[in-house]
């Protein structure tokens, strides 16, 4: 009996060895469609994309990253080539059905926003007439290219058409225009860039991926970092939702960043669970540097929030928890790092509560400043309403900052030893913040227990899982 077990284990070991050697020896060519990329970052998408590309390069795979804009980057130039769509003009004329005149109109739009933000909030902005015309042109192109066949079936096209005339202002029409432009241009690159597999990140690039798949016939992976229901709850932008759903149906495999996201895909998009693979994000893990907690404000403690000031991230719950705590004691300060649509509203609320002395807004910070802020923090809170993963939480832990995270997040499923709350439960949130500030033993034990887990959650592991998936599809 024992020998049978041993033999079985040996076979398994041999199989694993062969697989890892195979993946080690095989150099794959990956065509990756990204949107955000360092140093131009807006959220976790760019960080994840960059880390994955870097790790794939380390595993000796060749990656071609297609972005909206070419940027200077310090990745391994031998293995990674970055192509910016704004540099491509030559191949575009070959696209069937694309009329030169409307392409000129297209070019006009391209000069609009340089820092593309998938989270553009354009409430109340006025658009000029030129955009209207351009939007009409785009709708025409799309119809001609038949990119949105599935969307047309649910009458999205008429919505698109109508928005050309009457604005919603919710997601700027130029964002969708950019996405379409990107889809056309980046998709054509599949004819010229040699690749074994296509990997598209989020709804912004999936159309490009689908176009690429049509051209080369290679397998397509749709990597889902965030979904419309996360960003907007039940009031989804139906166009983006439609693009996400279309992408999920067309892709060969879907990668979700957490079981939480996988469940949303199954529940809300009606995709079969077999098609979805959960591969968690990771962290680079730093050695815990000297903490400077208590040095920020004359020995007072600091509680940190870091994220977009948007509904999804729950900064309003953070402020309410701060209010509860500051009613009892004033030796704690609260810092919100990040910018976003709720900026005005939150600042007004803080002023209304007369707590401006204790609650601080830094706006968007660069990488070095963020490192510094983490070193000053005593507690990090992530009260997200719906968070597909939550890389910032791992970063905080790698800086030795204990965290309190929302139960409605992906990272909660990989960290058993952190404090979790429901995002709306302000009472419990403030209770836990106070406990972390006052009970030193609690902090120490939590950090000790998560240390081991952090060492497991690396980008290298993410990349390994991705490569295994590629091998299955190729």
């Amino acid at each position, binding site marked *: 009996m024992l020998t049978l077990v041993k033999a079985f284990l040996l076979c398994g070991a041999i199989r694993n060895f062969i697989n890892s050697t195979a993946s080690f020896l095989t150099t794959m060519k990956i065509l990756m469609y990204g949107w955000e990329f360092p140093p131009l970052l807006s959220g976790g998408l760019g960080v994840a994309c960059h880390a994955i590309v870097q790790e794939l390069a380390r595993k000796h795979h060749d990656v071609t990253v297609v972005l909206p804009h070419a940027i200077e980057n310090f990745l391994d130039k031998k293995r990674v080539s970055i192509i910016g769509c704004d540099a491509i003009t030559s191949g575009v004329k070959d696209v069937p059905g694309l009329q030169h005149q409307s392409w000129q109109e297209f070019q006009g739009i391209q000069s609009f926003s340089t820092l593309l933000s998938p989270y553009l909030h354009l409430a109340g902005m006025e658009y000029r007439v030129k955009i209207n015309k351009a939007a009409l042109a785009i709708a025409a192109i799309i119809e001609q290219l038949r990119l949105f066949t599935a969307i047309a079936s649910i009458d999205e096209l008429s919505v698109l058409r109508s928005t050309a005339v009457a604005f919603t202002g919710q997601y700027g029409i130029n964002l969708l225009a950019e996405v379409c432009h990107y889809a056309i241009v980046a998709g054509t690159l599949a004819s010229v860039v040699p690749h074994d597999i296509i990997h598209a990140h989020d709804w912004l690039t999936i159309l490009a991926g689908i176009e690429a798949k049509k051209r080369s016939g290679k397998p397509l992976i749709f990597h889902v970092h965030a979904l419309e229901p996360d960003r907007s709850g039940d009031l989804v932008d139906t166009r983006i939702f439609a693009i996400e759903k279309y992408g999920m149906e067309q892709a060969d495999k879907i990668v979700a960043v957490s079981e939480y996201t996988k469940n949303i895909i199954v529940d809300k998009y009606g995709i079969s669970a077999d098609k979805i693979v959960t591969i968690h994000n990771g962290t680079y893990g730093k050695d815990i540097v000297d903490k400077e907690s208590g040095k920020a404000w004359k020995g007072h403690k600091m509680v940190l929030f870091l994220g977009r000031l948007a509904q999804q991230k729950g900064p309003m719950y953070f402020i309410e928890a701060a209010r509860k705590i500051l009613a009892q004691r004033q030796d704690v300060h609260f810092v919100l790092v990040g910018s976003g649509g709720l900026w005005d509203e939150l600042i007004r609320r803080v002023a209304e509560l007369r707590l401006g002395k204790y609650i601080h807004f830094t706006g968007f910070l660069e990488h070095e400043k963020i490192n510094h802020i983490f070193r000053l923090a005593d507690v990090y809170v992530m009260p997200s309403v719906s968070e597909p993963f939550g890389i910032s939480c791992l970063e905080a832990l790698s800086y030795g900052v204990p965290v309190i995270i929302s139960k409605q997040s992906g990272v909660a499923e990989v960290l058993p030893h952190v*404090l979790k709350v429901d995002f709306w439960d302000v009472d*419990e949130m403030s209770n836990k913040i*106070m406990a972390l500030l006052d*009970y030193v033993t609690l902090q*120490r034990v939590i950090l000790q227990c998560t240390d081991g887990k952090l060492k497991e959650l690396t980008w290298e592991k993410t990349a390994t899982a991705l490569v295994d998936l590629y091998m299955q599809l190729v």
Partner: protein
Amino acid sequence: MTTNICIYFQVHQPDRLRKYSYFDIGHSHNYEDEKVNREIFLKIVNKCYLPACSLLLRLIEQYQGVFKVAFSLSGVFVEQCQRFSSEALDLFKKLAATGCVEFLNETYYHSLSFLFSPAEFTEQVLLHKKMIEQEFGYVATTFRNTELIYNNDVAKFAESLGYRTILAEGTEKILGWRSPGFVYRPHGCQQIKLLLRDYRLTDDVAFRFSDRSWSEYPLLAEKYAYWLHSLHGKTETINLFMDFETFGEHQWHDTGIFEFLEKLPEYVLKHPEYCFATPAEISQRLDPIAELDVPYPVSWADMERDLTAWYGNDLQRDALHVVYALERDVKALNDPQLLHVWRLLQTSDHFYYMCIKYASDGDVHKYFNPYNSPYDAYINYQNILVDFSQEIARKKEEMSVVAASNGITSLATSEQQLQVQSSQRCCWFANILKQLKKLFFEC
């Protein structure tokens, strides 16, 4: 050679703490969750205590003194009986009255006090002794420490308090190659005898009974009795020490656990050399076969069978040290209510909930744990301790103020007395003068 079957049941329910947040500190001094305590207690009364105790009474009557068992009821449990269900308490009293049931002593509050304060430990044991004598009219001679925590020092202490028998876990850690089927003499003791739990045979009933993936499932009384019989000649006593909630709560009624217990005496007694005995009887009948040296504490908890279920991580250590550090101040206040509250905070369950060992996996700890995570348990407990410490400090302050003001009033009284005395003296002098004057003018 007769083989004894020694069955002992542990009965305990903790006073569970309510959700106590940081913001309750200083405002609410009510720590118990009476509602939950009542709900759980009544549920277990119906599922376990009533049917199991009734069954035992029937069996005792049926076998007319041949079937015997032992119980240990924690003080906290008995108090809950008094509050929530006198029916359960009456059944235990009836069991006591049969004369076939032995009651043991333990710490009243089911605490870990032996590890922190011998004085407190002694007081709790004496409290328990008194309670058992009052409620059940039973003078105990057998002792078991909370969760069978045992080492040489516990045995010595029990011996010094007059107990003749002590129970412990028959783990290989202390037995080595030896069998738990014999009586042992604790190292360093002269009189007291040690009985060790046969955990394999006990856990067959307590844990594996309803496990369908177990190779021996289903466990019928006949089969189990056969296993017991097959040890004949190799053991003198088979000690089956288990949680009473096995019957109806851990193993539900529909697993057939009650039928198992009902049939067990019949099948066991089929062997002429087998009998049931209580720990005290075994201690009287049998002599120790060897000395057993247990320098480090063992217990019956978890796979490790040591203290790590309650004292394994920093959260637990911190909480335990804080609560026991309050001993001197609490006792100085001479307030029975506060003393009771402090002692309830010592119940081992509170620290059991803070165990991190199995935080990621579902298991026994999670089954019992009302908290979502050990950290929640710790936070809740610490918040309560902070409020309690503040209350103690406040009362201490009050007491010293009162003492000081008592000193001033006595001072005032003596001043008044002096004034009265001096006025009295004045009167007397004035009288003398008057009389002298009278005398003078009359002459």
